[in-house]
């Protein structure tokens, strides 16, 4: 692996770095905010971020500058920025680290973004379980206010930027941007039908930008060092910069590792993660959080940028890489993830609400050796009827573990069903059927 420079985790990699305002300023913190407030036109910052090629780090990978440019310029009323800190995609735990170890990096990114889009108020929607992170952020906001980086008339520019922490109360779906807005409005977190998009009708029906924590944390660096520098990292022009990849599962050293996006899964899993935890080889890995289809060891040399992962039929998503060793039942793994999706389906769209429950029931009976020969066709059929037929991307996400395990490890399903049919035949004293599924 070629040497590279860490961007987001550079400061926190120093054991002495506490994440306090003093520490952050000592590393050049809040210089980017001062720079833009001293008179960089807002449109120039949008162009800068567009040019950098920065794409959303929450999962969808939408170009950040383009998202900002959708906001109506002549809108008279208030606009809002929401920082999506609801990090709840299984396999992802990077935002937690970025917030708890270097909160000011996120706050500076938010402040610059607020100025750029003309928002006076920014909310950090943090998942309710992250009580510690919420406290760290609240303390950091207070520090930044005292130092004049936030509040009214920031650095004498006349610009007002108020940031608030808003804790959720436990709902995966609130990471979906319109569900997040609903939740922030004090309602049940159910995704909205789009269009209209949040850029025109977002929080309180006002123009709103929703960006992930990691996306926002990149902004100060792009302002400081220029879009050309950022765009040269990774796979220009489409996937640029570094990402904090979250490695979990059966590896020696799980954790958050920042890498340029053109690094391969092998770099992450073997070089940084130390490889498998025991002498058992890998059977599968998930490349981008629970919503991403499973991949096989064959795909380990694929680059981790959005396009390369999409080319092999999965997605780079939120950057959560989960590795499984030989001996892990793929039916069980799919079931565990489906139970998660069944639990978290918000219930708004029938295909997702009912479908997730049916899939769980079928997977449970296959796993418990009570499967039936028609089950695999039924599973495929249900998946087909969920994908693309829901208001948000949750429907497409929930079918990916089932579809991908059926694609690569169909024999595991078949073996369990064969066993079930055999047991059934023995009980009924009939001839044992040999299934060709």
């Amino acid at each position, binding site marked *: 692996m070629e040497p590279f420079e860490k961007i987001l985790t550079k400061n926190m990699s120093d054991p002495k770095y506490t994440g306090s305002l003093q520490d952050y300023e000592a590393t050049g913190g809040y210089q980017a905010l001062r720079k833009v407030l001293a008179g960089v036109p807002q449109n120039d910052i949008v162009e800068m971020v567009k040019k950098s090629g920065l794409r959303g780090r929450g999962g969808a990978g939408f170009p950040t500058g383009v998202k900002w440019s959708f906001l109506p310029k002549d809108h008279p009323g208030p606009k809002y920025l929401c920082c999506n800190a609801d*990090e709840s995609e299984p396999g992802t735990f990077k935002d937690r680290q970025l917030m708890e170890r270097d909160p000011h990096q996120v706050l500076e990114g938010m402040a610059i973004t607020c100025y750029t889009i003309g928002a006076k108020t920014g909310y950090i929607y943090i998942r*309710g379980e992250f009580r510690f992170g919420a406290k760290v952020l609240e303390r950091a906001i207070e520090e930044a206010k005292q130092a004049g980086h936030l509040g009214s008339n920031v650095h004498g520019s006349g610009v007002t930027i108020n940031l608030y922490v*808003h804790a959720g109360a436990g709902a995966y779906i609130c990471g979906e941007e319109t569900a997040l807005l609903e939740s922030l409005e*004090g309602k049940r977190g159910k995704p909205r039908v789009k269009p209209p998009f949040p850029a025109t009708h977002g929080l309180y029906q006002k123009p709103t930008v929703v960006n992930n924590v990691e996306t926002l944390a990149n902004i100060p660096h792009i302002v400081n060092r220029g879009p050309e520098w950022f765009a040269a990292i990774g796979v220009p022009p489409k996937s640029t910069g570094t990402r904090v990849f*979250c490695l979990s599962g059966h590896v020696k050293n799980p954790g958050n590792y920042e890498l340029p996006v053109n690094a391969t899964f092998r770099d992450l899993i073997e070089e940084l993660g130390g490889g498998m935890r025991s002498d058992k080889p890998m059977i599968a890995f998930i490349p981008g959080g629970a919503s991403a289809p499973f991949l096989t060891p064959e795909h380990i040399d694929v680059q981790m940028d959005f396009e390369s992962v999409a080319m092999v039929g999965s997605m780079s998503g939120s950057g959560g890489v989960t590795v499984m060793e030989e001996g892990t039942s793929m039916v069980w*793994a799919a079931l565990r993830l489906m139970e*998660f999706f069944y639990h978290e389906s918000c219930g708004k769209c029938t295909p997702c609400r009912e479908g997730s429950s049916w899939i769980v029931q079928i997977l449970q009976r296959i796993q418990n050796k009570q499967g039936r020969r028609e089950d695999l066709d039924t599973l495929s059929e249900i998946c087909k009827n969920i994908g693309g037929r829901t208001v948000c991307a949750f429907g497409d996400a929930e079918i990916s573990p089932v579809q991908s395990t059926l694609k690569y490890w169909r024999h595991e399903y078949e073996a369990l069903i064969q066993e079930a049919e055999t047991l059934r035949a023995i009980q009924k004293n009939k001839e044992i059927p040999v299934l060709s599924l």
Partner: protein
Amino acid sequence: MLLEKHKDYIDDLLSRYPIKRSALLPLLNLAQKEEGYVSQAAMREIAKILDLTPPQVFETATFYTMLTLKPIGKYHVQVCRSLMCALVRADTLIEWLQKYLGIAVGQTTPDKMFTLSAVECLGSCGSGPMMQINDDYFERLTEEKVGQILEDLKQTGDCDLKTGPYMVPEPR
């Protein structure tokens, strides 16, 4: 009750949002912190503070899994059971806890100290198996650690094995 005791906090909270209803989740979280669960009385009071009807508050409260509408133990032990933790033996962790506490998942100890729940992903996949007890995360758990955490909580109400600012792997 809530309003009397936390007037300053609630005033500050309401000043943050242009629409009162936005303060609903923070107030429900506050009510749960106060009483250990969200009581009907609290929901009625919140409705009054935010100019909502009690059903509007109830409707929202029932959507969010962290809000408990019935009394539970003083310490809510929540174990992550999702795939990433399950790969590193979250199920064994649940067994240890059941053994130590003498209760099954979903139950509360007779002395009303501990309630054990199995929950979905808590965003700690690189440091499983893990559990959350009230506000704190406890990660990379072993049987020995679990015993000590429960003992410490019983004795002193706190345990220094809880996770501080999160970073895995630790900086060197």
